[in-house]
């Protein structure tokens, strides 16, 4: 066995790497301030979520172009440092690290799904960098460094479900994607049912990526609900709609994810989505002049974008909020900027005025109800007016006074959890 010819390793050789390793311990790095203000953007331009997330990047581009044309912020230009998150959660973590450690950005805006959001957000918070999440979400995050522009359950679910109960009757069936967002949304739906005299007659959590709904459709028919509450996410889960339509099992439904992000009413032929109700902050068809102007502006930057969705608006608002805060703080230094963000900023968003609530870091915004009609056009059936992000405040959260770093979940709040009966 030891017949092998050639070089034999010896222990002496080990000295070399050890010496070099010792030298490695005395390393230093230094950072130099760049001229433009750097905004890290990590959006999915490939993979499962590319379709709904690409319009988000357009929102950043629109706002940055607008601000830079008007002379920038503090006399400096804004620069987007963009990375493709590839719909990959791990990637979001790595890229957030790269943004902070390598590009030394001033703010991070990253992550569409709750999982990608948490991956990137954890890195930002750990390194004390301001983080923005710019699409609708399950809410409940109370954190000094984290800010949110998307609508949250008290703005979408409570309003949407109460409207449906009034219009169609009390009995509802919940279909939710089986992950954090779906779980939380489902519990909020139970709470809404309890608060407004509804009744949950059935509830199913669908694995992400599932595309076969034969059993689900039968279950829904057996339960005979007045309407459905759907939190279906991703291309595969969307299969529910054509399958239900083919089985003649369509029911009126409300959803906080469909249409306003994935513009399914434009992508799929009728009648799959007829009678789908959408409580939203922004869709391309939003019936205000400022919204129409915003759509035009975004289209001018990228004429090929098929749909300007709610994410475009959230991204746009986030950049403007940061610009306002930096101007008010007179610096891009993190703590000063947070103080400015917590000073009560408001902004004329495309759908109407929004106000950044200092206590919770979420937005007060106008919510409207849309209905997909027989031709798959969106009709506007109700205006809920401006709705505040009140839930965290009722839990005693006040980020101006007390630091927090946690997510409150509806089952932590006995007032909501009481409605969930096993």
């Amino acid at each position, binding site marked *: 066995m030891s017949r092998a010819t050639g070089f034999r390793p010896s222990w002496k050789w080990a000295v070399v790497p050890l010496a070099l390793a010792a030298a490695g311990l005395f390393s230093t790095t230094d950072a130099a301030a760049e001229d433009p203000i750097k905004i890290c953007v990590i959006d999915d331009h490939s993979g499962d979520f590319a379709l709904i997330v690409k319009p988000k990047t357009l929102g950043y581009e629109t706002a940055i172009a607008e601000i830079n044309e008007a002379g920038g912020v503090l006399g400096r230009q804004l620069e987007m440092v963009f990375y493709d998150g590839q719909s990959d959660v791990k990637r979001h973590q790595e890229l957030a690290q790269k943004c902070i450690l390598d590009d030394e950005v001033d703010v991070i805006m990253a992550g569409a799904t709750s999982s990608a959001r948490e991956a990137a957000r954890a890195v930002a918070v750990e390194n004390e960098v301001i983080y923005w999440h710019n699409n609708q979400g399950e809410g409940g995050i109370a954190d000094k460094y984290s800010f949110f522009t998307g609508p949250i359950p008290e703005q979408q679910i409570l309003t949407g479900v109460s409207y449906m109960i009034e219009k169609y009757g009390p009995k509802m069936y919940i279909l939710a994607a089986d992950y954090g967002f779906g779980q939380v949304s489902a519990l909020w739906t139970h709470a809404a049912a309890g608060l407004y005299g509804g009744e949950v007659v059935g509830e199913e959590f669908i694995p992400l990526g599932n595309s076969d709904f034969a059993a689900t459709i*039968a279950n829904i028919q057996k339960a005979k609900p007045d309407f459905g509450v759907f939190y279906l996410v991703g291309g595969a889960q969307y299969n529910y709609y054509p399958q239900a339509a083919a089985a003649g099992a369509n029911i009126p439904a409300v959803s906080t994810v469909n249409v306003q992000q994935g513009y399914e009413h434009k992508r799929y032929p009728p009648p*799959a989505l007829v009678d789908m109700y959408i409580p939203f902050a922004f869709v391309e068809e939003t019936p205000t002049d400022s919204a129409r102007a915003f759509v035009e502006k975004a289209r001018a930057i990228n004429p090929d974008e098929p749909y300007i969705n709610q994410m475009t608006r959230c991204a746009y608002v986030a950049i403007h909020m940061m610009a306002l805060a930096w101007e008010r703080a007179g610096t891009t230094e993190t703590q000063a900027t947070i103080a400015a963000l917590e000073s009560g900023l408001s902004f004329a968003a495309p759908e109407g005025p929004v106000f950044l609530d200092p206590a919770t870091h979420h937005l007060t915004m106008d919510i409207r109800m849309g209905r997909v009609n027989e031709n798959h056009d969106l009709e506007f059936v109700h205006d809920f007016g401006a709705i505040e992000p009140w839930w965290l405040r009722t839990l005693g959260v006040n980020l101006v006074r007390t630091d927090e770093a946690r997510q409150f979940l509806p089952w932590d709040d006995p007032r909501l959890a009481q409605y969930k009966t096993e």
Partner: protein
Amino acid sequence: METISFIVGLLYQYADTIALLALSAIGLIIIFGMMGVINMAHGEMMMIGAYITSFAHYAGIPTALAVILGGIGAGLAGMIIERLVIRRFYGQLLSSLVATWGLSLILSQGALLVFGQLIQSVPTPFGSFTVGELSYSYYRMFIFLVAMAMIAGLWALFRFTRFGVRARATMENPRMARALGVDTSRVYALTFGLGTMLGGFAGGLLALTSTIGPFYGMTYTPQAFITVVVGGGAEIVTGLLASVLSLGAIKTIFMNQTNILLGHVAMLVLAFVIIRLMPSGISDWVERRQVRVRER
């Protein structure tokens, strides 16, 4: 009435599950049975079929024809792939597995780059019927019948046509078949084309009830793999049939009584039990039983 509607519901689900398993696996199992190759790009062949179906439908071509075009397109793609790639890996099964996986990555991501995530769905034809309190899709029953017809057609192809005889000879003993004047490389190319064509056709059929995107095929391939493993490669038709009937039964029962995930888990567990008991798949086992019975 309750029980009748329950039984009808269960049978409908069973038929539906069988149709999905059979359609997604049929092309894969032909290629595996004849060539021993697992085509990891099978899901992408289904994707190609679905894409062509959608494009053809919106170009004004009748839906039935669009689906057939989808099959033909995937079949042609398959024959090109066989010429350019598979051919180099005859006799190296694991290498062909890896090479086709690379191909799968290129095709799905390439489709994403070229066509984006946005592909128009084709509306589902035929409408619905009602039994008891539940209503069902005629189309889902239609694809069940088509799946069964495809299996029957396959049986007839191998039994009665010249290609079938040559293919079976090649499968049994390629060297002998060559000695008898069979152009085995053509048989392989045609087999691969046939397998991918059926995959594309299945993709087109299923496209009428689902969303179509670059990763369309990936939702079907894992269950197709299980179906093939359970079916084995010895007797394609019996293997496929036995496999979809048994897997479909367990999946339907578990999905109906528990949830979708446990339906998948039950399928996989059953697959492991079957391979432990019958390592070469059901078809080989069935075949050996037949021999023994004949001997008695």
